[in-house]
Every structure is written in structure tokens, then in C-alpha cells.
């Protein structure tokens, strides 16, 4: 692999930063007319649209992500009948069709009554609007995806692409904004523990996993290699393959963040995507992409089928937002036609209108 020669570093940085700038919405494909069309644009720009994906896609342009990858339709006033008899309030979020901004509210169980929460509207990070999620421990909404909220709810992290990719930690109680170490580099933060953020750094040509203290003190490199995607329960997780060759195996990998040891958690028959974690921290995986089976990897080498041929809500696969969420009541799944709940490992049943999961039912 390339060494740390300056030219090679600069090339790697070029590719990585270009990839970051390309990480926006995928233009819609129309196989009949043979065109790709950006979502939410007028006809004139549709004609010109496919070409502009690079410019539209940017870390700071999370509003585009929000507009095109979130559910297009707002909630229906009459939620679907729910047989769930537990008592809790499930926070949901969706894109307001009129403004494109994320908004949200709660479905209250039992009964599945719904109410919007006006405090969600207008939530922004200092770098712009993006996802919103409900910080259950602090009982408030925050302007980032729930993967960017620490488990204790005390801190959330946002990114601002400037010379590097500045990562900022915001104290939920005080609002204090702390710039994390390494703002001149292109760290991609993908998950949090209570005192650390975890980030990938690819600018040397070889991906590296780093631990960034939320107090802004110097970060430490944990290991080289891997494509770690999510943090949960003291571990980082990824699904990958060592090769692009036909038939190459895929596997779910677990990195113990305390002992820095990697374990092959499950061999997969093909490509898969981590879509969430159950209430015990076990990863939930969709095998084979949209429409594939959904499994819970209950322990190393062990899996349980959760749903067959499942379609998660559009825009939640392949990006950071996770469309499945486990809590004390079961596993919630954000599907294209509504929110489903699996209780005690049972077949998921529909509970609510289509939306994104903003947090646990509490």
C-alpha cells in the first residue's frame, strides 16, 4: 500500500475530500426515459440534473439529504390501528413537504395517538440543518441523527466542512460548543460513546480508526484498516468484503473498543447493511440490500430472522441514519408504509404511519 509520502497523502486527501463532497443524494433513475433526475427539482433542472450531483452533494448541504432521502410524505392524521398495549411515547421525524425541513412528534401508546411537537421545527446546527433526533435521556430534540448523540444524551456532535472537517461537540445542558481535535483533517465521525467520538481518517491512503475525546483534547489512533460504520455497546461494527471479486464473502465485523480486538461476528451470504441495534446492543442487519431479509445477530455466529423481504423507508440504507431501533418494548422498524414493531422476537406488526425513528419509545 502507499506509504506516507507527501504526494501520496495529497492524492489520498484529494480522493477522500472529493468523496465527502459527493456524499449527497443519489439522483432518481427513470429507466423508461433513460434519465437520472434529482429529486425535488423543477423540470428545467431535471433535464440538467444528473450532471450536478457533485456540486449538490456536500457535508454542509445536509438539507439536500434531508429533503431527498427522508420520507416524502408527512404523517397522516389517522395513525394505523395498533395492537401494541405498552405505555410509551415514540418520537418520529419526517421531512415537512412544504419546507423540506425535518419536523417531528410523538406517537403515544397504547392507542397510537399522534401529536406533532412544534419545538422540532427550525432546529439547526451552527453549520446548517440536517437530521433531527430525540435525546431521550435529556428529553429534548437535537439537530443531528441519533448516531451523533452520546448514549447518556449529554452531548451531540456535528461536522462543518472547512479546510478540514471540523467536528464539534455540543453540551446539551449548557449549549457549550467544543471543537474536537484534528479540525484540519478530514475525520468522518460515525459514532459516540459518552466521552469519545469515533472517526475514520482516510487521508493517508489507508483507513484509520481514531478516538476523539469530546472535551477537545488530542485524539488517538486506535488501529489501521477497516471501514468501521457504527458504534454501539462498546464496539464498532462494519460489514465488508476483502475483495470486489465475484462471489467474494462478506462478513459482519466487531471491534471491541476497550481491548482493540476484531472478531468476525457473522459470515454473510452476500452484501449486507447494519440497519440498527436491538435493546441489548445486538446488531440488526439487512442482507442483500432493499427487500432483503432482516436478521438480528444475537451473538457471535448466531442469528435470528426478524422479517423476510423487508423494505425500509427510502433513504435510510447506505447512509448514516439507522431505520431499526431496539428498546425495552421490542424492535421498531421504519418501513416504507409505516412503523412496525416486533415484540419478543415476534413477527413485526404495523403501528404507525411512515416516518423515521427519532429515538426509543420512552
Amino acid at each position, binding site marked *: *500500500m502507499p506509504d506516507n*509520502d*507527501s*504526494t*501520496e*497523502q*495529497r*492524492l*489520498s*486527501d*484529494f*480522493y*477522500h*475530500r*472529493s*468523496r465527502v*463532497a*459527493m*456524499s449527497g443524494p*443519489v439522483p432518481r*433513475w427513470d*429507466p423508461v426515459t*433513460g434519465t*437520472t433526475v434529482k429529486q425535488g427539482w423543477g423540470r428545467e*433542472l431535471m*433535464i*440538467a440534473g*444528473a*450532471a*450536478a*450531483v*457533485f*456540486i*449538490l452533494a*456536500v457535508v*454542509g448541504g445536509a438539507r439536500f439529504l434531508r429533503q431527498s432521502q427522508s420520507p416524502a410524505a408527512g404523517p397522516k392524521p389517522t395513525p394505523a390501528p395498533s395492537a401494541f398495549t405498552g405505555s410509551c411515547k415514540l418520537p418520529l421525524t419526517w421531512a415537512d413537504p412544504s419546507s423540506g425541513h425535518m419536523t417531528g412528534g410523538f406517537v403515544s401508546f397504547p392507542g397510537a395517538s399522534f401529536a406533532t411537537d412544534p419545538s422540532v421545527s427550525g432546529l439547526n446546527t451552527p453549520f*446548517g440543518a440536517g437530521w433531527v433526533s430525540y435525546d431521550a435521556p435529556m428529553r429534548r430534540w437535537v439537530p443531528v441523527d441519533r448516531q451523533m448523540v452520546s448514549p447518556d444524551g449529554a452531548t451531540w456532535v456535528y461536522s462543518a*466542512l472547512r*479546510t478540514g472537517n471540523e467536528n464539534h461537540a455540543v453540551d446539551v445542558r449548557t449549549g457549550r460548543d467544543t471543537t474536537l481535535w484534528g479540525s*484540519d483533517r478530514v475525520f468522518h465521525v460515525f459514532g459516540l460513546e459518552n466521552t469519545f467520538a469515533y472517526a475514520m481518517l482516510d487521508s493517508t*491512503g489507508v483507513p484509520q480508526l481514531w478516538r476523539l475525546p469530546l472535551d477537545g483534547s488530542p485524539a488517538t489512533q486506535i488501529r489501521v484498516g477497516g471501514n468501521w460504520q457504527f458504534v454501539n455497546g462498546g464496539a464498532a461494527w462494519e460489514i465488508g468484503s476483502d475483495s*470486489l*471479486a*465475484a*462471489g*467474494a464473502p462478506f462478513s459482519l465485523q466487531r471491534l471491541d473498543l476497550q481491548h482493540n480486538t476484531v472478531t468476525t461476528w457473522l459470515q454473510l451470504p452476500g*452484501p449486507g447493511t447494519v440497519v440498527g441495534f436491538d435493546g441489548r446492543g445486538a446488531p440488526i442487519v439487512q442482507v*442483500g440490500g*432493499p*427487500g432483503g431479509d432482516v436478521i438480528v445477530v444475537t451473538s457471535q455466529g448466531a442469528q435470528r430472522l426478524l*422479517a423476510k*423481504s*423487508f423494505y425500509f423507508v427510502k433513504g435510510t440504507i*447506505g447512509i448514516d441514519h439507522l431505520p431499526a431501533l431496539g428498546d425495552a418494548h421490542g424492535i421498531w422498524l421504519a*418501513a416504507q408504509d409505516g412503523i412496525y414493531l*416486533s415484540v419478543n422476537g415476534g*413477527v*413485526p*406488526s*404495523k403501528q404507525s404511519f411512515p416516518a423515521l425513528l427519532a429515538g426509543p419509545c420512552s
Partner: protein
Amino acid sequence: MAVKLARVDRQDWFDSLYSATYRAVVGSVYFVVLDRDVAAEITHDAFLRLWEHYGRLPAGSNEKAWLIRVATNLAISHRRSQRAAWRRHVDDQEPADPGLQALNNLELVRVRRALLMLEPRDRAVISLRFDGGLGFAEIGAIVGKPENTVKTRFHRSLDTLRRQLGDANPVDVDSQMKDGSNA
């Protein structure tokens, strides 16, 4: 019931591949042609070929690898079309976007200029190595050249880039801006 009876037809097959691989494919193409309009156009053509190959790919094929191979080779042999030029004209009239500002970082412009000094096939080799993290044998399979040839081209291209990029500090963007070296 969440359990649905999926009918995996051509559209489902294509949609899942398209959404899962678009960014990877368009990125691979962009790093060869270094033009976003052309990259989008070539990527579209590659997906059109995928659509046309429904049911014709060998069993067990890795469609993503197939797409990247097809798209990369389309990019290598590409000649800029009038359609892309027209799209550029239209896009130039769009309002400024933060993404454009980010991409306008002068260091990126310098590297892009240096890469443009290479032949398209060599740009593909460099990007597949640095961006894709592929081995020389895998790169050879994509660009249709023996592994040793790929190694030779890689090192020769890297030498060219070193000469083009010189010793400029890659992160000293401010001083470059003061020099007025914006592209």
C-alpha cells in the same frame, strides 16, 4: 404485517443496485474524467448497460465490480460530448453552493490539475489504488492490463505527479490564495 412478498423483478433488482452503488460508480468515473458533468453522463450510460444486462450476467456475479469495470473503461475511452458541454452551461447558472466552495479548495484544484497531466488509463490506475484501495491484480482486471503493466504505470504516474505537485505544503491554502493561484 411487515413480512411482504417481494417480487424481485427487473426494477427491484436495478433499483437496489442503483441506490447502493451509484456513489461508488460515479466517484470512480469522476476520478478518471475529472469532470462532474461527464462523470454523471458516463455513469448513466454504465447503469443503462446494467439495465440491459438484466438476467445476462453470470450467476454469482458481483454487479458492483461489473459496474465499476464497465464505467471505468467507458471513462477511459470517453470523448467529451456536446451533451455534457450543454449541461455544464446550464449548471453554471445555478446559484453558488457550499459544496462548490468546498471543492474549490485550491489544494484540490492543484491535485486535479496534476492528475489531468496523466492519461485517462493512468488516472484510473491511480484512483483505483488510492481511492478504491485495490491491489494491482484487481486493478489490472478492471482496466484490462496485466498486473506488472499496472505496477509500472502506477509508479510512472506517481513520479509524474510528484514532479507536478512539487513540494508545496498541501494544507497551506491561505498562502496559495494570497498568491492568487486560484484556478
